[in-house]
């Protein structure tokens, strides 16, 4: 694909969010970084630009605008913050792929189902749920590629998430991932 896709990464100040942003910056993506109540994203942006010369990444101060511009929305926040975020992005998330990085085990409820309920017209998919910032950093440096479980029901969303996982230097696994990975 030649057309650059825009990603809104919500929760970019966290270790995993920041690491994922850096890994994805190598792909053909424009990445908008947002973190609630956080103004030190400039440092992260500079850091990514230094490490990835071709990076198209910038901080953004409004989550609604970030998600309005985005084709893909990644939530790198705990699932208990979903209700609040969903309120601000619901009108602009319709028909978009929304990736949850929250771990089902830690939260007790299935984050995909929770988020799908909050964003009924979005295409929700789970990925990077248990991968650590250290694993992502190692993959960035050319080290071992961690396996990343991709789960969801929408075919488009699964395909998009599998591509994100591959660009991030990881191996997508899960239902139907083998077919996607060999395409």
């Amino acid at each position, binding site marked *: *694909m*030649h057309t650059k896709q825009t990603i809104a990464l919500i929760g970019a100040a966290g270790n995993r969010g920041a690491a994922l942003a850096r890994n994805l910056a190598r792909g053909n993506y424009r990445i908008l970084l947002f973190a609630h109540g956080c103004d030190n994203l400039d440092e992260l942006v500079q850091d990514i630009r230094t490490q990835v010369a071709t990076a198209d990444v910038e901080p953004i101060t409004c989550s609604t605008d970030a998600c309005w*511009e985005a084709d893909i929305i990644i939530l790198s926040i705990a699932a208990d913050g979903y209700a609040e975020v969903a309120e601000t992005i619901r009108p*602009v998330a319709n028909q*978009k792929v929304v990736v949850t990085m929250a771990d089902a085990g830690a939260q007790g409820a299935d984050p995909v189902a929770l988020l799908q309920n909050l964003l*009924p017209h979005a295409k929700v998919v789970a990925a990077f749920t248990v991968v650590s910032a250290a694993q992502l950093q190692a993959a960035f440096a050319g080290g071992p590629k961690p396996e990343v479980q991709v789960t969801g029901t929408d075919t488009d969303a699964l395909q998009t998430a599998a591509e994100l996982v591959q660009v991030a230097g990881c191996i997508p696994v899960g239902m139907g991932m083998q077919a996607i990975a060999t395409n």
Partner: protein
Amino acid sequence: MYEQFFKHFTEKVSLSEQEMEYVKGLLKPKKLRRKQYLLQEGDVCREIGFVEKGALRAYSVDEGGTERIIQFALEGWLIADLYSFLTAEAATYSIDAIEDAELLLISRSAHEELLRNLPQYETYTRLSITNAYIAMQRRITSIISTTPEDRYADFIAKYPQIAQRVPQHMIASYIGLTPETLSRVRKRMAGK
């Protein structure tokens, strides 16, 4: 966010509140900054764009690198590489934003779902395509049978808003003139 879309839609066919909500759920709101691509030649066109705000163009690039603009789209217009959208073959046109834009995108699956479930959408689509077809016939007639002066005058008369918002070299491309020829045409017309 949906103002222009439903204004244009309900000029053609009526919709209940409930039907509007259903349609909203199938549209993807997307902001595009100036010079960003909605579609690049070679990719499959997966969505039709409806312009809520801003201006876009669709164009091809010839072997010499010259851009040939086939369509502009302002508020209330649709833009896509329709052949690619319907066949899933690679697009021969690129589409980008001339101004910061707000779009509503209709995917192939949303398009098909709406055609199946909402008869008004079929009517809206038929009327939109019919109008676009007529506009294209007129455009071809203008390009093959009139002088550069007439072509430019036609364009200004038909699309005064585009003429005000779009740079001259893009207008030249759209009406099939080089920027130099258009510049001479404009001088001659100004001198009359």
